[in-house]
């Protein structure tokens, strides 16, 4: 507003100066060329001189005063020029002057420059009228009532013009300030985006990048300007940790957009522009407009390679430590066992009692380390080896067989029920895709738990299935499980907090591991039961058809063959090296050299009958 006003005043000043100057020049010219044109020479010359004076004022004093008091100085100018104009009008016929129209224009024009100017000009005009009226005793006024009316109308018009221009100026200023604010916000956003440590990428539904911040550029190695507008798949090359390409549907951006939900992944690896691989923590949120329609997605990501490395180090440490601890544990167990053995040592009853307890405890400690190691492996994804078709019936037979001894110790029965329709002797063979060793451990863990929590009666292991799934159940007649424990049962470290069962022991990791394993095999595990009425644990696994089982074997075999060749070669070497050193030991009975000859043949052994080792 202020700037506009100042500009207006400057302009006004210049116009006034020029106007006055022009008047002076014209009058002088007329005087010089044709004095007869001037009706009242004296007045005209006075007018011209005033005009010159105005110009003189404009050039000198006005400039000086304008620095601090432009408005006031311009007002002075206005008044002087107004007087000058009045003189022109008087000298050219007063109210009948042809230049009166010009004067009216001036009044209207004054409106543009401000209320003050309008008032000044109007005021002077009315003063003039008043003067003329008084001087001529009211006679002239009647004749010039029209001019008076028009003058007042002009004044009103001027004021209207003034108001309009002020509003326009206000609107322009508002627009300018809004525009200024917008630029400010834009700048703020840019600064914000630029300072965020995480990479930010915004894409639309056609996969084009709309926004790509500085951190995104640094992480991906792509230039900010280049990246905007191109398909994000080119810039953000993602794949899973084991080098597999992301299946089109499981791409986090697609997932976020199609499901309209936040997708978080910390298992992806990105390949930078330069070819480096970085592990990312990525979260993608869908962007929806006001009607809920998804218009794109915004992704935040950061490099977690270092965090992952630290995690790995921790896991390795836990793994190594657990492993290391098992040696002393084995030694302690062994020594205690020896002490308790009558053939080796002689002890009294009390010592036997205490050593028995110590023996149980050290076994418990061993289990703890074992579970800890398993959990670490589970988290590293190394828990299971090969997935192969497993004959569930046979596996259960083996597990039940091995656990008979433990059940018998508590006088509990342990039976296996294979599904067979009434009358049929042979039950179908159920194959599932799993690691047979791990699945066996799971089943044995469940049986072991049942034995632990059952005082009398027995445990029944049963197998059932249909075309799609195979179900293993372990039912016992034990203490049962309280309803509030059921949802937590398969969680890490959860132990049933019940005085009756506290003494039973356990690490709280068993069922967690069971669940992890079962889920790794794409199955489900759950429990049913009531306190006092026993519990039944169920495992459901997807059933493999004959064809699928064969395929699994084929795939596994080819992978095995590829690695077996390398393994065989490696094994021959140490054998040869070892043999070469044997002669240094006191002469063996048999000549050493024959041992060097044969390359150990790797023949797949026929299945031994008793492969169920404890």
């Amino acid at each position: 507003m202020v700037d506009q006003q100042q500009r207006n005043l400057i302009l006004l000043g210049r116009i006034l100066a020029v106007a006055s100057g022009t008047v002076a020049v014209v009058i002088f010219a007329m005087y010089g060329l044709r004095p007869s044109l001037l009706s009242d020479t004296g007045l005209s010359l006075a007018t011209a001189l005033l005009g010159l004076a105005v110009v003189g004022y404009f050039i000198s004093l006005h400039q000086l005063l304008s620095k601090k008091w432009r408005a006031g100085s311009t007002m002075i100018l206005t008044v002087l020029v107004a007087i000058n104009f009045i003189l022109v009008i008087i000298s050219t016929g007063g109210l009948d002057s042809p230049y009166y129209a010009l004067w009216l224009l001036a009044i209207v024009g004054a409106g543009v420059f401000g209320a003050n100017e309008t008032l000044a000009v109007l005021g002077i005009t009315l003063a003039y009228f008043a003067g003329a009226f008084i001087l001529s005793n009211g006679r002239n006024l009647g004749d010039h009532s029209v001019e008076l009316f028009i003058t007042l109308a002009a004044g009103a018009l001027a004021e209207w013009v003034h108001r309009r221009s002020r509003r326009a100026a206000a609107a322009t200023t508002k627009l300018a300030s809004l525009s200024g604010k917008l630029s400010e916000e834009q700048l703020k956003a840019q600064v914000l985006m630029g300072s965020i440590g995480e990479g930010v990428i915004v894409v639309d539904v056609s996969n084009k990048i709309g926004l790509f911040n500085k951190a995104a550029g640094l992480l991906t190695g792509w230039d900010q300007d280049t990246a905007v507008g191109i398909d994000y798949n080119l810039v953000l090359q993602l794949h899973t940790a084991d080098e597999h390409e992301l299946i089109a549907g499981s791409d986090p951006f697609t997932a976020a957009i199609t499901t309209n939900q936040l997708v978080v992944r910390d298992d992806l690896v990105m390949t930078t522009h330069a070819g480096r691989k970085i592990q990312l923590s990525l979260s993608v949120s869908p962007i929806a407009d006001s009607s809920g329609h998804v218009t794109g997605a915004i992704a935040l990501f950061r490099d977690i390679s270092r965090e992952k490395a630290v995690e790995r180090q921790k896991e390795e440490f836990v793994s190594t430590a657990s492993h290391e601890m098992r040696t002393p544990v084995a030694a302690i167990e062994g020594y205690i066992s020896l002490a308790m053995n009558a053939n080796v040592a002689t002890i009294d009853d009390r010592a036997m009692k205490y050593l028995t307890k110590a023996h149980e405890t050290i076994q418990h400690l061993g289990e703890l380390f074992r579970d800890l190691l398993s959990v670490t492996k589970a988290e590293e994804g190394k828990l299971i080896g090969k997935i192969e078709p497993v004959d569930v019936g046979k596996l259960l037979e083996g597990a039940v067989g091995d656990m008979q001894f433990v059940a018998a110790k508590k006088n509990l029965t342990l039976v296996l029920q294979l599904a067979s329709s009434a009358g049929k002797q042979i039950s179908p063979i159920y194959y599932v895709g799993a690691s047979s060793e791990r699945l066996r451990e799971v089943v044995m863990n469940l049986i072991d738990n049942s034995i632990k929590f059952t005082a009398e009666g027995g445990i029944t292991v049963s197998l059932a299935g249909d075309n799609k799934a195979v179900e293993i159940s372990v039912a016992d007649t034990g203490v049962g499980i309280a309803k509030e424990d059921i949802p937590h049962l398969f969680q890490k470290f959860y132990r049933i907090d019940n005085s009756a069962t506290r003494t039973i022991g356990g690490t709280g990791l068993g069922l967690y591991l069971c669940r992890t394993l079962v889920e790794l095999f794409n199955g489900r595990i759950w429990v049913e039961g009531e306190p006092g009425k026993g519990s039944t644990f169920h495992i459901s696994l997807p059933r493999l058809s004959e064809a699928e089982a064969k395929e699994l074997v084929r795939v596994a075999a080819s992978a095995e063959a590829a690695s077996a060749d390398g393994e065989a070669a490696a094994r021959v070497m140490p054998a040869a090296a070892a043999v070469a050193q044997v002669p240094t030991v006191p002469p063996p009975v048999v000549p050493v050299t024959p041992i060097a000859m044969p390359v150990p043949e790797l023949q797949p052994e026929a299945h031994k009958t008793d492969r169920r080792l404890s």
Partner: protein
Amino acid sequence: MAKVMLVEDDTNLREIYSARFAAENYQVITASDGEEALATAVRERPDLIVLDVMMPKISGFDVLDILRSTPETKETKVIMMTALSQDTDRQRGESLGVNKYLIKSQVTLEDVVNAVKQELGAIA
């Protein structure tokens, strides 16, 4: 009486197993690494070898390999003791001709003795 050879690098475990086997009236011979084991096995011809897997210089697998390739020890009963619980390792042992594969953290001393008895009983 049965002759049992124990191949184990840990001193404590060697003492424990020796004492325990002696209590069963077995004649016990020990070796603390693979090389010693091979030489001793060929010389002493034990009825059964309890073989630790994780040993310095050469592993139990390699020892087994060589034992099975040596005519004198080809038929000797071998029980492998290991801390490794991976399927692949068990299979490796079995493909090399082990008689029993025991995972240290899952068995007690008595379990080992039972396994030995079982294997020796199988001969008689």
